[in-house]
């Protein structure tokens, strides 16, 4: 909210430079976001937190300034000269729905001349960004800004049946607002109605048909206390936010309604030359009391880290207009002023003591007390392990948004029906939650490729989403890695390797080693430990194609934290290497052959494929695998005979299980 320093000084003539004052307000929880000099005035823009509605007025902020600077606070005078209401001007106020309007006060001013506002009034309003309309409306706005009590003026002549009924709207009841918008009301809306229908949306905006105009001669000034939740719901239902609804939503002072109506009536009589009629209408609850709150000084000191006496606290609170008494236990018995709707419990008073004392003066200490036992966090450890493997392989970590849209998904061959839609997206490209990480990695690759990168190696750890039962959303933490273009940094002395399937598969194998997890492939899918993953080859500009592996990582949590890995004693005896060139059917999986060889002898320590080819010299439908087996024993040097016997055994197994033949050498 904007505040004029000149206006504030009407109530608290603090002799403090504006920037010093801004600093003090900021440190008291009223953050001054900007300070602009306008002529001989200074306009402060202050962020008022939602619970400090008492500060949404000049008087409210002046009260804080008075506390901070010690300068006296002068409240605006209310000097009413009222004339007893003649019959022809009486208005019958019928407060029907007291739950939504606990108090409704109103004053009538007659014989006025609506017209331009005097310069002082227009200046005050315009200084804080409120447009001057006419003297009557300007006064209602002025008093709202001055006291924080929203007011509304009805043209008395336009109230049919001289009645004001405060009631819920009938379903579908129509109301044309001051701004011209026609509403079909909900039965949950509170309205002010005359004898025939709604004339104002309570606490939000007045109606066009009862608006004050240049021909207005008499007005009813409404000063009510509306239920904050009701006003908020109604304002949101119609997408409205007004000076009035803003204050009512945050809570107003129910004890101030009559005073504000009187203040406005007196000022209207002053600037528009009218007569104030009395007595005022004042329906609903007119007596309000605050609960007594017990403040234990020891508790307050413990929570704040201060060592104030009860008396110190009482002094601070009294300066903020709190009533403070003492009970027999030396506790303070507090009653907050009526406008401090945020202070209802001991903790609220503790905060107020801390704020008044100054957070700056609270000594900074490190926490003592008991430390909980350190715990391993499997997810963190897995993520660190994965990041180590990927960065060691030259991959750059990326963060992409969690959102996508159906068009993008379709472009990557994914079904939008598998993605969870966001109910209220702000950006159309962010309409759904991502069902996979790799499409965004592909975009990162294309972007960098177009910027000239010859190589893109990127990975992301992030959550993907899929629709679950009963409107739930299933979250899956994933790891995805994408490689495109050159698979290693360039050097002039040698051609760079290209990223391909085997390159990204190598990453998965490295992860398997790091996590001591099993890895099996079935076509383009794989299982890494208990997690499932998939290889995707996709067309990717400007590289031609990209290669992706994406896998669930939640099933791998715990692998990095408590690996099953055990030390295997190192053999001191030399190993013997034997090579095999076997011819098998094209459909035979190399992994199965390797596994069979690994199991073929307990001496087989390492089995690796060093060559694969088809064609030349081979029957159609067959392929040749060149395989190297390293044999080793823990307790002796192997003899050639032992190694040859093991090799022979291996050949027999391959022949039997895979129909393998030895390729003649």
């Amino acid at each position, binding site marked *: 909210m904007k505040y004029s320093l000149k206006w504030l000084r009407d109530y608290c003539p603090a002799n403090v430079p504006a920037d010093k004052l801004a600093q003090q307000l900021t440190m008291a929880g009223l953050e001054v976001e900007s300070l602009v000099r306008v002529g001989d005035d200074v306009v402060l823009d202050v962020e008022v937190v939602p619970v400090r509605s008492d500060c949404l007025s000049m008087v409210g902020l002046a009260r804080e300034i008075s506390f901070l600077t010690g300068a006296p606070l002068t409240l605006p005078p209310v000097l009413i000269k009222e004339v007893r209401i003649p019959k022809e001007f009486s208005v019958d106020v019928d407060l029907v729905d007291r739950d939504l309007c606990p108090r409704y006060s109103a004053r009538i001013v007659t014989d006025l001349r609506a017209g331009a506002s005097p310069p002082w009034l227009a200046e005050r309003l315009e200084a804080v960004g409120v447009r001057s309309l006419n003297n009557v409306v300007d006064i209602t706005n002025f008093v709202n800004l001055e006291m924080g009590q929203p007011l509304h003026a009805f043209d008395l002549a336009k109230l049919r049946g001289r009645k004001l009924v405060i009631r819920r709207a009938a379903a579908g009841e129509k109301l044309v607002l001051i701004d011209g918008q026609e509403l079909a009301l909900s039965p949950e809306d509170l309205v002010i109605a005359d004898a025939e229908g709604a004339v104002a949306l309570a606490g939000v905006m007045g109606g066009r048909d009862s608006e004050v105009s240049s021909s207005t001669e008499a007005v009813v000034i409404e000063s009510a206390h509306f239920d904050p939740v009701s006003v908020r719901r109604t304002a949101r239902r119609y997408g409205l936010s007004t000076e009035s609804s803003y204050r009512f939503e945050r809570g107003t002072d129910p004890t101030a309604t009559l005073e504000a109506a009187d203040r406005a009536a007196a000022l209207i009589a002053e600037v528009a030359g009218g007569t104030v009629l009395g007595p005022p209408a004042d329906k609903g609850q007119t007596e309000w009391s605050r609960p007594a709150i017990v403040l234990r000084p020891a508790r307050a000191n413990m929570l704040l880290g201060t060592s104030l006496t009860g008396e110190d606290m009482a002094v601070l609170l009294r300066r903020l207009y709190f009533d403070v008494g003492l009970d027999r236990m030396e506790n303070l018995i507090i009653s907050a002023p009526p406008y401090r709707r945020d202070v209802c419990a001991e903790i609220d008073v503790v905060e107020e003591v801390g704020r008044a004392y100054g957070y700056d003066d609270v000594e900074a200490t490190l926490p003592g007390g008991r430390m909980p036992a350190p715990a391993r966090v499997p997810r963190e450890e897995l993520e660190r392990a994965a990041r180590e493997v990927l960065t060691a392989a030259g991959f750059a970590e990326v963060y992409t948004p969690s959102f996508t849209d159906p068009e993008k998904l379709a472009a990557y061959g994914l079904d939008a029906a598998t993605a969870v839609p966001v109910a209220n997206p702000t950006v159309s490209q962010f309409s759904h939650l991502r069902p996979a990480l790799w499409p965004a990695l592909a975009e990162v690759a294309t972007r960098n490729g177009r910027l000239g990168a010859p190589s893109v190696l990127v990975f992301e750890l992030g959550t993907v989403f899929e629709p679950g039962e009963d*409107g739930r959303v299933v979250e899956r933490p994933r790891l995805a890695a994408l490689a495109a273009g050159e698979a290693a940094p360039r050097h002039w002395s040698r051609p760079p390797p290209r990223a391909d399937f085997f390159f990204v598969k190598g990453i998965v194998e490295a992860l398997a080693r790091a996590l001591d997890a099993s890895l099996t492939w079935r076509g383009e899918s794989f299982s890494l430990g208990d997690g499932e993953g998939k290889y995707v080859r996709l067309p990717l500009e400007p590289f031609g194609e990209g290669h992706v592996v994406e896998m669930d990582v939640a099933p791998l949590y715990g692998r990095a934290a408590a690996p099953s890995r055990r030390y295997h004693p190192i053999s001191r005896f030399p190993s013997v290497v034997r090579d095999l060139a076997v011819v098998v059917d094209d459909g035979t999986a190399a992994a199965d052959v390797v596994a069979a060889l690994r199991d073929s002898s307990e001496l087989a320590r390492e089995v690796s494929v060093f060559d694969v080819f088809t064609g030349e010299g081979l029957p159609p439908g067959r392929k040749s695998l060149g395989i190297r087996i390293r044999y080793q024993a823990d307790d002796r040097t192997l003899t050639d005979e032992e190694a040859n016997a093991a090799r022979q055994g291996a050949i027999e197994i391959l022949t039997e299980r895979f129909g393998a033949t030895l390729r003649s050498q």
Partner: protein
Amino acid sequence: MTEDAKKFLAEVTALKTAAEKAATAVSDGKALERWRIEFLGRKSPLGRLSKSLTSLAEGDRPAAGKALNELRADLKAEYESLQKRLGPKKAGTDEARLDYTLPGVQPPIGTLHPLTKTYYEITAFFASLGFNVAHGPEVEDEFHNFGALNFPPDHPSRDAQDTLYVNDEWLLRTHTSPAQIRVMLEQRPPLRVIVPGRCFRADAVDASHYPVFHQVEGLLVDENVSLGDLKGTLTAFAEYIFGPDTKMRFRPHFFPFTEPSAEVDISCVVCGGEGCRTCGGKGWLEIAGAGMVHPNVFRNVGYDPEQWAGYAFGMGVERIAMLKYGIDDIRLFYENDFAFLKQF
């Protein structure tokens, strides 16, 4: 050994010397071919010498033959080495003329995202104070994201949250604070927990807003915990992350789930407090929201607010990273240009 044999061996030695000397002058393919014909060709002295081997005395033949074979092998090796030297190849690799200033082969060097690096620094600090890490779901319900955190229904305090909804029941968490609730429902004090994670807001995209951002939430619950402890913790944190000269201040603020609440500012990392563009002339930069856990939050998780006290804080990882590295546009974190990523 006969005189003939001695002469034979001398000729072998002389031939070797001549060939080596001639080799130094070979500078192109043509010269190499001439060298080959001269020293290895059919009419070369080598051929003549091998023919004359049979005319030597029987006893001298093995030694002479050995010398001749060695010469032949040496000449062939010399020829191959010349061939290699003159063959097509990259400039600069000649050992003798190696240009040591040419760039080396780069090992593949991956990079961690700056948000990860920042997060790891944050974690390292809090781990040293005994905080454990906990995680929570990104899709939350109303109870964990708002209700249990003491956000009254239909209250303006919810406006600041700009919540993205999946449906009536489920929403994308607007902060990592719901995980506080999950931790407290599962564990008993004393507690020291930080919760990292991705959060969501219905924000438009600009230099300082993005619908996705990351937060680290902290929670400490024990029997005696004060606002002073919170100040001390965050002061030490600011000095750890931004350097020992960093000053910190607490401004009273409002959050539904803490009371007293504060916004935490550090002295501007650019101007040191004098006032500049980064800090909007204020000399201070906001880095966190914090406060003492509200008694209603304790009640909502079944802790007795008379027995326990606690503090909580939340900070934006993007915000910390931007201040730490001097990054002025939040979108850079999500665009992933290598020109950006490779700087970290």
